């Protein structure tokens, strides 16, 4: 461009390929596909969801703007309150167990033993099987009459009566938590194992010579060095668990008596099941500030851990 200006000749249109040499154009061109995808599949549905929640739309009936009325209604809905509590309880308890068990497994798998590769691959199975299928298997295992769990407990003499796993509100929640932990532990174990393998064994040896006992070596060396990985894994898991749907939908459908609903399953039941699209949208949007807060807090924490 400078050359044409200096030579004083009439400015010719810049060929399209030349235009790409300008970094602003190139950057724009490279960003377009991502922006389109994000806009089409994330921003657009999100905005539509927000608009829907401010409407009174039902299946087949085009609603009108009602402001925050849906949120007000949902706030006073006892099932919604139960599902909020459930979601936090479910996410909190499963995350603690998944982290503890996953870490324990990862430390075991980090040792040398025969058939290590095979066991590591095996560990991933619950993670690989489609959730709906494995959850159906669990549903049968929890069945009060044909349950293999009841049968085993009975044969071992621990129980004399059938336990109604999915029929009792508290037991149903516990059952769901057990299945979620079973399904989530492999992800924690494998990710943490990858994290453990980045920690030089020399550090353990140095700590051993420095006089640290095994527990102290874990607490002062392994755990702080594993923390960034742990935080990322927990972050992913919390987001996924918080918005979980399949597991509860298949196991209990939110029952018995709406006792096991989570945000996602209740939003689905309200919006699709009952046809109150706008109220369903309001329920699922109510999840957003919580998730947003969790993500922000954890990201800030990860940044702090990584820069120290």
């Amino acid at each position: 461009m400078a050359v044409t200006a200096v030579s004083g000749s009439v400015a010719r249109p810049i060929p399209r390929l030349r235009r790409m040499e300008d970094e602003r154009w190139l950057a724009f061109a490279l960003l377009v596909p991502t922006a389109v995808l994000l806009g089409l599949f994330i921003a657009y549905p999100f905005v539509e969801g927000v608009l829907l929640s401010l409407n009174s739309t039902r299946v087949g009936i085009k609603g009108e703007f009602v402001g925050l009325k849906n949120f007000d209604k949902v706030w006073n809905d006892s099932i919604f309150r139960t599902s909020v509590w459930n979601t936090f309880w479910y996410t909190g308890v499963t995350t603690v167990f998944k982290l503890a068990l996953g870490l324990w497994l990862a430390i075991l798998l980090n040792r040398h033993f025969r058939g290590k590769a095979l066991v590591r691959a095996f560990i991933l199975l619950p993670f690989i099987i489609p959730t709906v299928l494995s959850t159906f298997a669990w549903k049968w295992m929890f069945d009060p009459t044909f349950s293999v769990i009841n049968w085993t407990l009975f044969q071992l003499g621990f129980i004399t009566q059938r336990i109604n796993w999915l029929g009792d509100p508290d037991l149903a929640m516990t059952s769901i938590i057990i299945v979620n932990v079973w399904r989530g532990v492999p992800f924690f174990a494998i990710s943490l194992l990858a994290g453990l393998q980045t920690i030089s064994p020399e550090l353990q040896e140095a700590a051993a010579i420095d006089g640290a006992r095994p527990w102290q070596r874990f607490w002062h060396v392994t755990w702080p060095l594993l923390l960034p990985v742990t935080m990322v894994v927990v972050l992913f898991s919390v987001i996924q668990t918080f918005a979980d749907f399949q597991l509860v939908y298949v196991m209990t459908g939110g029952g018995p008596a709406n006792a096991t609903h989570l945000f996602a399953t209740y939003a689905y039941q309200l919006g699709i099941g009952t046809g109150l699209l706008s109220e369903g949208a309001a329920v699922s949007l109510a999840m957003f500030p919580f998730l947003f807060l969790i993500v922000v807090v954890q990201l800030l924490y990860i940044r702090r851990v990584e820069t120290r």
Partner: protein
Amino acid sequence: MALVSIRSVNKVYDGNVHAVKDVSLEVRDKEFMVFVGPSGCGKTTTLRMVAGLESITSGDILIGDTVVNNLPPMDRDIAMVFQNYALYPHMSVFHNMAFGLKMRKFEKPEIDKRVRNAAAILGIETLLDRKPRQLSGGQRQRVALGRAIVRHPQVFLFDEPLSNLDAKLRVQMRVELKKLHERLGTTAIYVTHDQVEAMTLGDRVVVMKDGIVQQVGEPLELYNTPANKFVAGFIGSPAMNFADVTLAESDGKLWAEAQGLRIGIPGEIARRANGRNGAHATLGIRPEDIHLAGPTDPTDLCFDAEVEVIEQLGSEIVLDTRVGNSAFVASVDPTLRLKVHDRLKLAMNPARLHLFDAGSEAAI
């Protein structure tokens, strides 16, 4: 008293890899002992067995008067400096050095005093608040040393501590290590594959190969009277020349003969080689013990050589020469003007000749 005794120690991995074979040696109190050898010779494994990081398959290791075979590393009163420093990346320099004392429940003021003291010795007082990744290689090395020093252990163990430093820094740290040892007087075992480090640092040196101790001795002892061909070739740079020769007696004298080479073996070695007439052997002579022949050199120590490569080092000239089907490296006067393919008459220093058995490779 911090003497380390290694008695008939063996290490077998997974039932078939015999890494350390029947090693016995004593490291005296306040001694700086260097284990040297090529990679895989068992020197690091031996050190790790002393540290307690590796179990002992058979034999005994004593530190002071205590058999430590089954003691965990923390109860052996040792400190170790690792090849990759093994500093805790999430702790500051201060806490890296204090960690061992904290684990041993020292009082805070005592920890503070010892860490600052060690930092002063090593010249790293200004780095105490830094994290390891903010340090250069040499500084990390000092911190690793500091972590060992603060503990006031009975024995220091060094596992190739200088091998990750660049050449110039390595020489500098070598000197500092030597000074540090003289100052602290703690018994030390130092593993390296670098024979220069071994020669300069060691009060005594252990040369190992294939898990077997080849020779234990003071540096000059290894240099002057190597026990076998391996030690002779490993110690010294450039390496000792070896030529396959046949021993022949004539005129009441023993001769080492090869194509283009007929060297009269001097009295002392000839006496030890008595009865080997006609046997094969290996003749050894260091490059620095070969010189350009002058009129005073007896002819039975001279040989004709053709220059193949000239390496001008300034302080000396290293010549690669060919003698029949043997090759000899000679280190000669740097003022000589030589050309490739020059034919020279070279002479050996008779007092520095070595002869090794062709089969066992032991010195004759």
